[in-house]
C-alpha cells in the first residue's frame, strides 16, 4: 500500500473519531484491517465495537452512567492505538526508513523479545562479576563478555524502539528491571531512551506509564531523565486523548517531592535547547573565525606549545589577554561564559564535527550513557583510557560529546594526548570542587542531569545521519503549558515567569507571548507584564494587540515614558498620526527641558504624516539645533520644505544629501524639486539616476512616481505630466 494511500485512510479515520462518528470510524478501521488480512486486529476491533454498542445501548435507554465519558475516552484511545498498529503494519513491507528497516530486519532475524534480552543481560552481568573474572583469570574473557553485553544492549535498544505496542510481559519485565539493582544505571538510562524513542514513533500507554513510574520512584540520576522523556512524549501527543491508565500514571508524578522544581528545570532546559542554534552561530560565525585569524600570531608566540594549549593558556597569560581584548574576542568570550553559566549549550558547535565516527552509525550509541569500560574505549592505549575515565567524571559534557571527544583522541599525537590529559585533569578538579561547594547539591545535580540529557537528545535529532526520518521535538515551541495532562501544574507563576523571561531575553517573542498569556490568566494585572506583552506583539507585527497591552500598562503606570513612546509608535504604525502626536507630546512634557532628539523627530514625523509641513519642518529644525552633526532629519526636512514650496532651502538640503550616498528616493525627490522649478532637463537626469540607483527597472520607478502624484500637485506640478516623463525616459533609454 502506498504511503499516500495509508495517510489518506488514517486521516479519514481520525476525522471520523474527531467528529464523534465512531460508527463510521469502526467501519473504516475494519475495512483497513481486512484489506491487510490482520485478523487479530480485526478481532480487537470487533471487541471494541461491541463495548461501544453496549455503551450506546445504556445511553439510549437513559440509564445513568457516571463513567460514560471515561469509557468513551477509553474507546477512542483504543481505536487510535489500533489505527497506529494498522498504519505501522501497512508501512512495514516497503517503507525505507530506518525504523522500518530495523523492524523488518528484526522480524527476519528471529530476534529476541524484550524480556529475553533483559534476562540475557542479567546473566551476562552476573558472569562478568568480579568473582567470575577472578575465577576465569583471563582478561579476554572479560572483554568477550563486555562485547556480548554491548550487543545485547544494542539489540534491546532496537527492540524497545520498534516494538509496538509494548505487551504486558514487556511492561512487567521493564518495570522490574528499572527497579532492580542488578542492572547498572547507564543500562537503565538506555532503557528509558529506548522507551522514549519508541514512544515518539507511536503513542503507547505503557511507555507513558513506565516513564511516570521511573520518575516518581527512580534514582537521582534516572528520575530527571524520565521526566524530560515524559514531557517530550506528552507534548507530542498533547492533542490526543490519553487512556485512563496513562493519565493515572501521569497524575502520580507530582507525588515526587521534587516535582515543582524538576518541572521548572525540565521546562527551562527544553526551551533553552531552542537557543542552541543561536549560540552555535555565534561560535562558528563570530568567535572561531577570529580565533583562527589569531592562530599565526599565537603560533609565533608560543612556538613550544601545541595548538590545544594555546587556547587554554589564554585565560592566564597577560599577553594573550591583551591580544584578545584588542581582537574583540574577549567580549564574546565573556558573553559565551554567561551563556554557559545559564546552561546554554556552548559545545554543540565544537562536537557537531565529531559525530561521523562509525560509532555513531549505530542508533543505540547516540543514547548510550558514557562509561569508560565500554569495550572500544577500554581497549584503547592506557593513556587514552585514563583520559576517558577523567572525561567520565566531568559533569560538563553530555554523553554523546564524551564519546566524540574520546574517539577523537586516537587521532592526535601522543605528546598532545599527555598535554590534553594534564589540562583536563586540572579543569575537572576545579569543576568537581565547585560542585562540592554548591549549596544545594541535589538540585544542582538534577538540573545538570537534565541539561546534559537534553543536549544528548538535541545532538541526536540534529546530527544523526538519518535525522530527517525522526520527528524532531526541538523544532516545535515545546510549550508544555499546552499539555492537557499537566493542566494545573503550572499555577506556580515563578516557573512560567522564568520561561517567559528566557524567551523574552533571547528575542523569541512569539513563544514569550504564549507563556505571558498563561501568566496573565493566573495573576493580578501587572503593568510590567503588559508592557512586555505589548512589546512581544509589537515585535511580531501584531500592532493592534501591542497597543491594547501598552494601553493597559499605561492604566496601571501612567508615568512610564517608555510605555507612552510605544503607544505613540503603535498609533503611528496603525496610521493614526494625530493620536501618536498626542502621546509624543505627553512624552515631551515628561522629558521637560531634557526633551530628547528622538521625541522631537518623532513628532516631526507625525506632522509629516498629517501633511502639516510647517510644523514638521519646525520640529526637524529643532532636531538639527539639538544635534548639529546629525543627518537623521535631513531627508524629511528637505521633503517638508519642498512641500512648502521653499525650493531654495530644499535645494540646499538636497545638495547636502547628494554628498551622503543618495538613494533612489533621494534622486526621485530631487527630480521633483527640479520639475517644480521648471528645470526639466535636470529633472529627467535625476529621475534616470533614481532608476539606476534602484533596481534598474523603469516599472519600479513608474510606480514610485505615480505614488507621488499628489505631492507633485502640492508643489504645483500637474500630474498629467507623469506619463510624459515616463515616455521621455523610455525614449532616452533606447
Amino acid at each position, binding site marked *: 500500500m*502506498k504511503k*499516500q494511500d495509508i495517510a489518506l485512510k488514517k486521516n479519514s479515520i481520525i476525522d471520523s473519531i474527531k467528529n464523534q462518528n465512531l460508527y463510521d470510524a469502526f467501519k473504516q478501521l475494519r475495512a483497513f484491517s481486512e484489506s491487510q488480512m490482520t485478523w487479530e486486529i480485526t478481532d480487537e476491533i470487533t471487541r471494541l465495537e461491541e463495548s461501544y454498542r453496549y455503551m450506546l445501548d445504556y445511553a439510549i435507554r437513559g440509564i445513568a452512567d457516571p463513567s460514560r465519558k471515561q469509557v468513551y475516552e477509553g474507546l477512542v484511545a483504543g481505536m487510535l492505538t489500533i489505527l497506529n498498529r494498522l498504519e505501522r503494519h501497512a508501512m512495514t*513491507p516497503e*517503507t*525505507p526508513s*530506518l525504523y522500518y*528497516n*530495523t523492524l*523488518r*530486519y528484526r*522480524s*527476519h*532475524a*528471529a530476534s529476541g523479545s524484550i524480556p529475553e534480552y533483559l534476562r540475557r543481560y542479567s546473566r551476562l552481568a552476573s558472569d562478568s562479576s568480579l568473582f567470575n573474572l577472578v575465577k576465569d583469570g583471563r582478561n579476554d574473557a572479560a572483554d568477550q563478555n563486555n562485547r556480548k553485553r554491548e550487543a545485547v544492549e544494542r539489540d534491546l535498544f532496537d527492540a524497545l524502539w520498534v516494538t509496538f505496542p509494548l505487551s504486558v510481559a514487556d511492561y512487567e519485565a521493564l518495570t522490574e528491571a528499572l527497579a532492580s539493582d542488578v542492572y547498572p544505571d547507564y543500562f537503565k538510562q538506555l532503557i528509558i531512551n529506548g522507551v522514549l524513542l519508541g514512544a515518539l514513533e507511536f503513542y503507547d500507554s505503557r511507555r507513558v506509564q513506565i516513564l511516570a513510574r521511573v520518575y516518581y520512584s527512580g534514582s537521582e540520576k534516572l528520575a530527571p531523565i524520565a521526566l524530560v522523556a515524559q514531557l517530550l512524549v506528552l507534548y507530542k501527543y498533547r492533542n490526543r486523548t490519553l487512556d485512563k491508565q496513562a493519565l493515572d500514571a501521569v497524575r502520580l508524578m507530582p507525588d515526587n517531592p521534587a516535582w515543582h522544581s524538576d518541572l521548572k528545570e525540565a521546562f527551562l532546559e527544553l526551551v533553552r535547547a531552542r537557543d542552541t542554534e543561536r549560540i552555535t552561530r555565534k*561560535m562558528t560565525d563570530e568567535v*572561531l573565525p577570529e*580565533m*583562527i585569524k589569531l*592562530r599565526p600570531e599565537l603560533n609565533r608566540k608560543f612556538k613550544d606549545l601545541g*595548538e*590545544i*594549549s*594555546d*587556547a*587554554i593558556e*589564554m*585565560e592566564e597569560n597577560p599577553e594573550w589577554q591583551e591580544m584578545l581584548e584588542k581582537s574583540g574576542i574577549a567580549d564574546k*568570550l565573556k558573553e*559565551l*561564559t554567561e551563556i*554557559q*553559566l545559564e546552561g546554554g549549550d*556552548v*559545545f554543540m558547535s*565544537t*562536537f557537531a*564535527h*565529531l559525530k*561521523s*565516527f*562509525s560509532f555513531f*552509525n*549505530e542508533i543505540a550509541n547516540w543514547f548510550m550513557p558514557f562509561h569508560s569500560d565500554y569495550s572500544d574505549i577500554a581497549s584503547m592505549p592506557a593513556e587514552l583510557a585514563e583520559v576517558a575515565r577523567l572525561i567520565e567524571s566531568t*559533569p*560538563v559534557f553530555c554523553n554523546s560529546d564524551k564519546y*566524540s571527544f574520546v*574517539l*577523537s583522541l586516537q*587521532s*592526535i599525537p601522543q605528546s598532545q594526548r599527555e598535554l590534553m590529559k594534564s*589540562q583536563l585533569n586540572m*579543569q575537572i578538579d576545579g*569543576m568537581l570542587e*565547585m*560542585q562540592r561547594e554548591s549549596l544545594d547539591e541535589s538540585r*544542582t545535580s538534577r538540573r*545538570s542531569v537534565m541539561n546534559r540529557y537534553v543536549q544528548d537528545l538535541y545532538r541526536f535529532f540534529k546530527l544523526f*545521519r*538519518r535525522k530527517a*526520518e525522526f520527528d524532531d521535538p526541538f523544532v516545535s515551541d515545546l510549550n508544555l503549558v499546552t499539555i492537557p495532562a499537566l493542566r494545573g501544574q503550572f499555577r506556580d507563576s515563578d516557573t512560567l515567569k522564568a520561561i517567559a523571561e528566557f524567551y523574552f531575553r533571547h528575542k523569541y517573542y512569539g513563544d514569550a507571548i504564549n507563556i505571558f498569556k498563561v501568566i496573565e490568566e493566573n495573576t493580578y494585572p501587572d503593568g510590567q507584564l503588559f508592557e512586555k506583552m505589548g512589546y512581544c506583539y509589537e515585535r511580531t507585527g501584531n500592532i493592534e494587540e501591542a497597543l491594547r497591552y501598552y494601553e493597559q500598562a499605561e492604566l496601571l503606570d501612567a508615568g512610564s515614558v517608555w510605555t507612552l513612546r510605544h503607544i505613540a509608535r503603535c498609533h503611528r504604525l496603525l496610521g493614526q498620526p494625530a493620536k501618536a502626536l498626542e502621546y509624543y507630546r505627553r512624552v515631551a512634557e515628561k522629558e521637560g527641558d531634557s526633551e530628547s532628539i528622538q521625541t522631537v523627530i518623532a513628532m516631526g514625523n507625525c506632522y509629516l504624516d498629517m501633511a502639516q509641513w510647517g510644523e514638521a519642518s519646525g520640529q526637524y529644525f529643532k532636531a538639527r539645533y539639538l544635534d548639529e552633526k546629525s543627518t537623521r532629519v535631513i531627508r524629511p526636512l528637505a521633503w517638508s520644505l519642498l512641500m512648502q514650496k521653499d525650493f531654495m532651502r530644499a535645494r540646499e538640503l538636497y545638495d547636502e544629501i547628494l554628498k551622503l550616498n543618495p538613494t533612489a528616493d533621494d534622486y526621485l525627490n530631487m527630480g521633483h524639486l527640479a520639475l517644480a522649478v521648471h528645470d526639466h532637463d535636470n529633472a529627467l537626469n535625476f529621475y534616470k539616476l533614481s532608476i539606476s540607483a534602484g533596481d534598474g527597472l523603469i516599472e519600479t520607478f513608474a510606480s514610485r512616481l505615480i505614488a507621488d502624484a499628489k505631492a507633485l500637485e502640492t508643489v504645483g506640478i500637474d500630474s498629467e505630466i507623469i506619463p510624459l516623463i515616463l515616455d521621455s525616459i523610455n525614449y532616452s533609454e533606447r
Partner: protein
Amino acid sequence: MKFPIAFSLALSVFAVSCANNQKGSGDNDSFRTENIKFDRVAIASYGTECVASIDIDYPVPNGSVLGDSVREWIVSNINSYDGLIDVVMSSHPSATLTDGKFVVDAVGSLLLDSAVVQVDDMQKYFGDQMPGYEYIYKYSRGYENDTVLTYNASVYRYLGGAHGGETISDATFVRDSGLRLTWDNMFVAGYERKLLPLIKRGLMTQYFDVDTETELADCLLVSVDELTLPSAAPCYEADGVKFTYQQYEIAPYSAGHPTCTIPYADLVGILRR
C-alpha cells in the same frame, strides 16, 4: 558550573582538526561486499533435476550504514518469496543475518529441499512429466557513484508449466545514510502526472520501438490511457533513472520486462535527489 570557555574553544580547534580523521566518516570507504554463490542440483524422483542458483554481492558486516541497509533490503527481498528467511532463521536461532555465507547456503538448501519434496509430491500425479523446479536468485552491485549505489535484483523461479517467471526489483541507496530511494522520496509530490508521459514516450522509443500511441497500444495488455507507474521502484543508472515493469504488468510474457531510462535532464523539477 563554569567550564572555561577557552577550553571549549581549544576543543573546537581540536575538533576541526580531528573532523577529517573520523573512522567510517565516509561510508564509501567502509562499504564492502563479498560475492557469495550457491549452485547446486538435487535429484527428485524419476531423476528429475531441481536447480538452485544464488549469486549475491553480500555486504560485509563492518558497521557501514550502507551495508546494513543493503543487507536488510536483500534479506527482506528474499523473504518476500515464501518467507524464506523467516523459515531459515526460525530453524537456526543462533545464526545471524550478517553472515552472508550462512544466509546464501541456508536459503539455497531450503529452496532445493522444498523443491524436491514438492516435485516428488507432484510426480505422484504427473509422473516423469513433472519437470524439476529451478530457482535463480541474483543480487548484484550495479551503477555506483560517489553519492548513490544501485543494486540489481533478479529472481527467476520455474515451478513447472510453460515457463518460469522473473521478477526484477532494483534498488538505489544513498551512500552516506543508507537510505533506500523509493517513489516517495525520489520524486517531488505530484510526480505521477509529469512522469507518466515521459515513461510512455520512453517505452515507445527505447523498448517497443514504435512511433505512435496506437502502435504502443498493440504491444500492451492495458490501454495506453490506463498505463500506470511500474510497481517496482525506479533506480539510478549512469544515464538516467530506469523504470522497469514486471512480466505481465502491462504487456504479455513474450514482451519481457518493458523498461526505459529517462535522462536526468528530463527529470529536472520532479527528481528530488
